[in-house]
């Protein structure tokens, strides 16, 4: 188990290196010149050269990448020795061209909003998805199954921006049942935080629950036809024990896998949700950075998203090992 974990961590680190090389390469394949972007409106050739030097863009490419990685690992100092010396502590991802802020500070500022969305939405989509999937599977071919199947189909085919805007129009603008979506710190204003988050949670929760409802229903129906479920019935167990212990235990494994991966992806930034509801999270930061060609911020957000996805994969595989004895002992 430990050896496996070490192997997976090394694998994850390798992926991260590849991702970092890839996004770092963006600096140079893009037609935009980073120095020109950082230079601003009143740019002169002298200023540009100075910036080129400040940003260490005047050294060979591999050396730049090496410093970039070294900055992440052990920090980095720009213009060392000069008066304008800039210390960027590890993990250093550089400065935003747009705001001159540390990229890591931007990421730290934006992470709580994304975390908030992911927290509530994932609870909601698990609750809705699992319960409607279970009811569907147990009441197969009844109206309640057809209804939940229909809702799941709708959820799977609708888009966040559409559902989000429709919900906002009715629940906020027309009926006034909910306050406008937004983000405040849950430490300072817990009530306002929850109120501002309801709409994103509902939208994301409903749309993603569709996948879980279908996955749960299909998984349970498949497991129900297994021989070992017949054995469980032959023991004299009530249908409740059969369904909730024997069937669920086998059907839950793939659901947990998908859940881990979805959550990992969401933690890297709920791009569309944040954009639609104007929530200042990592996804919004990424879209802003892209539209401003703010390369250090783009690199930072991509790396953070990649870290979450890689970690989610590792966690999911470990959980899978715990859940499935066959994998555990193999």
């Amino acid at each position: 188990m430990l050896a496996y974990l070490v192997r997976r961590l090394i694998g994850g680190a390798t992926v991260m290196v590849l991702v970092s090389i890839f996004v770092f390469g963006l600096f140079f394949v893009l037609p935009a010149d980073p120095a020109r972007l950082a230079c601003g409106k009143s740019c002169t050739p002298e200023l540009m050269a100075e910036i080129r030097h400040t940003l260490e863009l005047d050294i060979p490419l591999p050396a730049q990448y090496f410093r970039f990685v070294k900055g992440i690992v052990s920090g980095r100092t720009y213009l060392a020795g000069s008066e304008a010396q800039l210390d960027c502590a590890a993990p250093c991802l550089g400065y935003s061209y747009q705001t001159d802020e540390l990229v890591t500070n931007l990421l730290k500022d934006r992470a709580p909003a994304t975390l908030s969305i992911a927290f509530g939405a994932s609870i909601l989509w698990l609750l809705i998805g699992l319960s409607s999937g279970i009811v569907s599977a147990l009441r197969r071919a009844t109206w309640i199954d057809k209804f939940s199947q229909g809702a799941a189909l709708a959820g799977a085919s609708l888009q966040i921006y559409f559902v989000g805007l429709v919900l906002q129009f009715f629940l906020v603008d027309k009926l006034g049942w909910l306050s406008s979506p937004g983000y405040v710190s849950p430490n300072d204003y817990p009530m306002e935080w929850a109120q501002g988050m309801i709409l994103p949670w509902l939208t994301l929760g409903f749309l993603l629950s569709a996948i879980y409802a279908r996955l749960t229903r299909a998984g349970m129906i498949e497991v129900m036809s297994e021989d070992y479920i017949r054995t469980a019935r032959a023991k004299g167990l009530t249908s409740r024990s059969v369904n909730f212990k024997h069937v669920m235990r086998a059907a839950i494994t793939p659901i947990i896998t998908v859940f881990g991966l979805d959550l990992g992806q969401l933690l890297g930034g709920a791009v569309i949700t944040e954009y639609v509801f104007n929530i200042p999270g990592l996804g919004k930061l990424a879209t802003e950075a892209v539209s401003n060609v703010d390369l250090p911020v783009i690199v930072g957000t991509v790396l953070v998203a990649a870290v979450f996805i890689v970690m989610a994969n590792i966690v999911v595989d470990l959980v899978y090992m715990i859940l499935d004895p066959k994998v555990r002992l193999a």
Partner: protein
Amino acid sequence: MTAILQVKDLKVHFQTDDGLVKAVDGVSFEIEAGKTLGIVGESGSGKSVTSLAIMGLHKGSRAAVSGEILIDGVDVNQATEAEVNKLRGKSMAMIFQDSLAALHPFFKVGDQIAEAYQVHNKVSKKAAQQVAVEMLGRVGIPNPTQRMEDFPHQFSGGMRQRVMIAMSLSCNPKLLIADEPTTALDVTVQAQILDLLRDLQREFGSSILMITHDLGVVAEIADDVLLMYAGKAIERGTVRELLKTPEHPYAWGLLTSIPKLTGATDSELLAIPGTPPSLITLPSGCSFSPRCSYKNRSKVDCESAMPELAGVKSNSSHLVSCHLSETDRVAIFKSEIAPKL
């Protein structure tokens, strides 16, 4: 003698897209306390469907079950799921053919056995675990305390079938239904499992319904035999009667098709010609008639009707469903079948 199980005119029909499958069509039998009934028939003859009907496991499926299945004074077919749950495991328990598929892959075998005990006994988890250890030891699994913690896939086929047996016997059921428990095992293991079942039967005093397509297994363990063909009982009697003086041409075919090691020079492998009929469009009359080599000897048209399952004159407990007259059957058996056995 008191019958533990009485099955009267059992019918199990499945409505499928291709038509009505009459998997079991009017089968009756009973099993007395402490006795073993073997149900024999080739693949698809309705053996498993019969055993599932006894356990009430067709409930909630598309199967239409009719007839009477009496066990412990309850008609399984009329009873609700809750009523049948009281019988399952305690009055009747079942061992399935494929033990790997029949045990839950994600639960430890110890917990699976303990659970079976706890369904009918209000005891702590710990006490149930203790029973499970004892049962595992009783069915001959070495180091039962340690093996409790293992999962089904960590056992060999034979050991896993022992786990199934331990689980099914944990509540000391009156009737044990074993659906081809040894088919997936090699011959030596098969013999061990049969020995084990016989020993346990003596110890626990259970009746056994042994389902098999192997006449060797029947000879080994059964007191009585029911021969099934295409969903119907075509011959019934004691093991001796069926193996020594079989009456139905299908039984002749089965017996003469067993390969023999001795006298290999003149013994030929006599498979029964043809294949079992479709259960949707059964042949008219006797369903075995298209494959019967003796139908032209019958004075009655074999395609006219399905013959009644009726007592053989000399012995009313030996029943057969055949249009051939008894004298013809005796004559054919003497001259053509007995020499080949």
